[in-house]
């Protein structure tokens, strides 16, 4: 076959989305596509978008599963707003996703799937491939199912198996469009299907056939080329936020020398952390799948008392159930990491969608005066780092720490520059020494107010702790009014003192000006990209993105004072903004909120910023 030289369209970034029925293998196609992009040096971010149901009825909108890949030759901060290339394997997936396609986007469809019943089930009156409604897009209509079966006819494969590999045919077409090498994928099949060699052959044939088909029909006149991104030198890998969180906890355990204990109960979208840690018993991780959320955290409190780096992972509804036990950990002043992978709420809410609406719960959702450290990760990649820091702060300051991530960070993936453990910051828990005559359960380090960690089994340190208020220093039960005041103040002071041990808040842009954009947690990518776009347009906007929420960095007030207007953007009805207003009562703090289970779009942010700049 002679290869025609195709014209090349250089693109700085491209968003590709694979959508189909939940059994169509879209997650696998998307993952393979992004792995190949990573290999050629693109920066990238991915996000799987799957239904809450495991297998919703076939060909319905409810059953649409998707995988989005945002790749670029420059730094990628989000999983992408609008899609350049949409692979839609059936009518329902097309209907559910067309609104995300840019005008002029390339849409690859399997025409075999567009039969009357499926079209009707998707809610279309007419066949969208024939009624002219897609005229403003570049639609590649390929009979993918038929061609897949055709390509396998020599292999004597049953129809069902053949049909199941149609996702690889579609992927082959995409590899042609993006001029990708097939070899890494062949290698991948060889690894993945070691035990089922017939599947290696099938997948190779179908992937190659898809590629050849695209070449034959000249699926796209030109090659879309996304060059390698300029990235810091180093060894890289792909990582999801949930894996990053799990590994960050393992890293903190190794660094501190405290064995890892996880007590958790499965809940979307946090379960992957539990599953990931269950795999790593070789690192000594003890993972306990509890009978409920409460047992998850209570077992962790027991393990913390016994000297482990104890963690529990959950999402909003589970955090509600853990509230009383967090209070116990605050009272007993034991280190504990509570990871909340936030989802849409309240109640069961939107389990597979993302929100930032658990902030109030993390800050205030307990009985009594009950402060804890609250930290938030901002990218899938830095879930590793902030999980590590949450564990470090919890142990060094002897207090629970809540780490907030969210469904987008947890499920999404980004490239991760692999750190060396030797470069990670040290973690020095305040272990009490055997037979220390000075040991008292609530005697504190005057610097950070942390009490010592005296582990059962240690000679000469027997003591009792518990949920009843304790006498300062001695740790015996006390109902003395003044003692309660002192202990309340000490617990609050201990958390406030953490501000001395965390970095100052950074600011992207000028330190003073007309408009400061404030964000926290998982919205970093969108807000940063929006601010960057404003900068490109020559507009003076500064951005402060917060990772440390309780306590806030020491210089927070000073930063806020430098701006005429402040807008706090978050995916809730205004929880961080009200927290800031409480700490810094300033009339010029405004807010921009969205509670749709969806991330911010860059243009909705820039519109808001422009509007604020124009208003006098």
């Amino acid at each position, binding site marked *: 076959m002679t290869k025609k030289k195709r014209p090349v369209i250089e693109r700085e970034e491209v968003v590709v989305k694979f959508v189909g029925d939940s059994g169509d293998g879209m997650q696998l196609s998307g993952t393979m596509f992004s792995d190949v992009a990573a*290999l050629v040096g693109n920066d990238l971010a991915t996000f799987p978008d799957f239904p809450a149901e495991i297998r919703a009825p076939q060909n319905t909108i409810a059953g649409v599963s998707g995988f989005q890949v945002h790749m670029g030759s420059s730094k990628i901060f989000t999983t992408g707003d609008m899609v350049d290339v949409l692979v839609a394997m059936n009518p329902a997936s097309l209907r559910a996703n067309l609104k995300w396609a840019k005008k002029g986007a390339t849409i690859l469809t399997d025409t075999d799937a567009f039969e009357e019943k499926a079209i009707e089930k998707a809610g279309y009156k007419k066949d969208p491939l024939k009624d002219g409604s897609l005229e403003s897009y570049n639609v590649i209509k390929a009979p993918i199912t038929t061609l897949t079966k055709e390509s396998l006819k020599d292999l004597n494969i049953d129809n069902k198996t053949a049909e199941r590999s149609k996702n690889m045919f579609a992927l082959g077409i995409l590899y042609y469009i993006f001029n990708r090498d097939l070899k890494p994928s062949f290698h991948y099949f060889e690894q993945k299907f070691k035990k089922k060699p017939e599947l290696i052959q099938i997948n190779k044939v179908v992937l190659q056939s898809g590629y050849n088909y695209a070449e034959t029909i000249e699926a796209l006149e030109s090659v879309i080329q996304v060059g390698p991104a300029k*990235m810091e*030198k*180093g*060894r*890289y*890998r792909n990582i999801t936020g949930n894996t990053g969180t799990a*590994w960050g906890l*393992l*890293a903190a355990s*190794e660094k501190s020398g405290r*064995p890892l*204990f996880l*007590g958790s109960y499965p809940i979307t979208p946090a379960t992957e952390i539990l599953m990931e840690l269950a795999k*790593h*018993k*070789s*690192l*000594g991780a*003890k993972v*306990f799948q*509890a*009978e*409920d959320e*409460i*047992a*998850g955290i*209570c*077992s*962790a*409190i*027991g*393990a*913390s*008392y*016994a*000297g*482990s780096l*104890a963690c529990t992972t959950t999402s909003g509804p589970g955090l509600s159930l853990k509230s*009383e*036990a967090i*209070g116990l950990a605050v009272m*007993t002043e034991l280190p504990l990491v509570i990871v909340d992978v936030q989802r849409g709420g309240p109640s069961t809410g939107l389990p597979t969608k993302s929100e930032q609406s658990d902030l109030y719960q993390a800050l205030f959702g307990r009985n009594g005066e009950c402060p804890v450290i609250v930290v938030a990760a901002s990218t899938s990649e830095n879930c590793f780092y902030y999980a590590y820091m949450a564990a470090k702060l919890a142990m060094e300051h002897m207090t629970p720490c809540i780490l907030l991530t969210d469904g987008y960070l947890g499920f999404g993936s980004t490239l991760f520059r*692999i*750190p060396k*453990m030797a470069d990670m910051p040290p973690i020095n828990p305040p272990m009490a020494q055997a037979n220390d005559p000075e040991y008292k359960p609530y005697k504190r380090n005057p610097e950070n107010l942390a009490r010592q960690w005296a*582990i*059962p*089994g240690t*000679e*000469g340190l*027997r*003591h*009792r*702790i*518990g*949920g*009843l208020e304790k006498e300062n220093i001695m740790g*015996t*039960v006390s109902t003395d009014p003044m003692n309660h005041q002192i202990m309340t103040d000490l617990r609050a002071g201990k958390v406030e003192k953490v501000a001395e041990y965390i970095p100052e808040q950074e600011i992207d842009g000028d330190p003073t000006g007309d408009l400061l954009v404030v964000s926290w947690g998982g919205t970093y990518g969108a807000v940063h990209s929006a601010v960057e776009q404003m900068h490109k347009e020559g507009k003076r906007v500064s951005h402060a993105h917060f990772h440390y929420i309780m306590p806030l960095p020491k210089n927070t007030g000073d930063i806020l004072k430098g701006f005429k207007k402040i807008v706090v953007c978050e995916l809730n009805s205004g929880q961080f903004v009200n927290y800031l207003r409480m700490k810094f009562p300033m009339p010029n703090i405004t807010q921009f909120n969205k509670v749709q289970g969806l991330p911010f779009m860059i243009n909705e942010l820039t519109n808001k910023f422009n509007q604020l700049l124009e208003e006098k």
Partner: protein
Amino acid sequence: MDFVNMTVERSKVQLTKTDFESDQMVKWCPGCGAHAILAAVERVFPKIGYRKENFCIVSGIGCSSRFPYYVNTYGIHGIHGRAAAISTGVKIANPRLSVWMATGDGDSLAIGGNHFIHIIRRNVDINILLFNNQIYGLTKGQYSPTTPMGKVTKTSPQGTIEHPFTVGELVMGAQGTFFARVPDNNINMMTEAMFEAAKHDGTSIVEIMQNCIIFADKAHNEVTGKEVKDETMLVVKNGEPMVFGKNHEKGLVLRDTRLEVVEIGQNGITIDDILVHDQYSQDPGIHLMLAKIAPPNYPMVFGVIRSAMFPTYDDMVEEQIKYAKETSKIRNVDDLLNSGDTWEI
């Protein structure tokens, strides 16, 4: 001395009661059955022989749950109903500790019912002292899950309309491997049962029929009272026939699928016809029947009813970790970070 768990380090010196006495004032009501339980624990801990630093007592909430403050060991006073979960975490994190849990009928059978059945099902090696006084004492006299139906309490002025749990039945239902029932007025029986519990690898439930002198006084008297106990209490001993009565003239036999009370010397019954107790039987069938029976038609059974050997959760955790450490290529976090697909830029 009998064999006790060897994973827990033993004391090099012979400890005594005073090694475990705390300096805190014991604040239970005078005459409360809990005092006797505390005395039994202070007596049995030195006998068990572990280092004093290796005992850890965990509790929930309620009168029973003040227990950790009154014994000089490591201890956590937890939150209501969650002692089983906290204990589980302590034991998994450090299997070399001897973990004891003090709890009550409200703490473990009402608010903590879920954790109670699951710790038993998992067979975590914890010794649970369940103070069953059939009432909520600390909140001043409301009925509990073990209060007999019809009993007038502060929240059941016309009598309760709830079917009470029988602790032993619940334990067997949750696949319990150890169950003993003891009265709070017999320190020897309590001490023996606690020692057996310590010996048993797995979750041990010692149900203590405890008297709340204020809110449910004499609740157990119909069974454990001095005047009646010969006829109402059957104390089982492993390998011995199950007899009771003032002159050991009564006993239990198995007829068809049910236990029956018979009199020795009547209708041709001899001591050889009486069921012999086998606390180590893995099959819980007879143990369940023994745990369930009660006056007026039967005696109530006391002593160690069941002590069957099954693998413990905490041992299996250690085995899995050991196996993973021996076989995995990932030996540290650097290995982990660099595992799978990675590339150089």
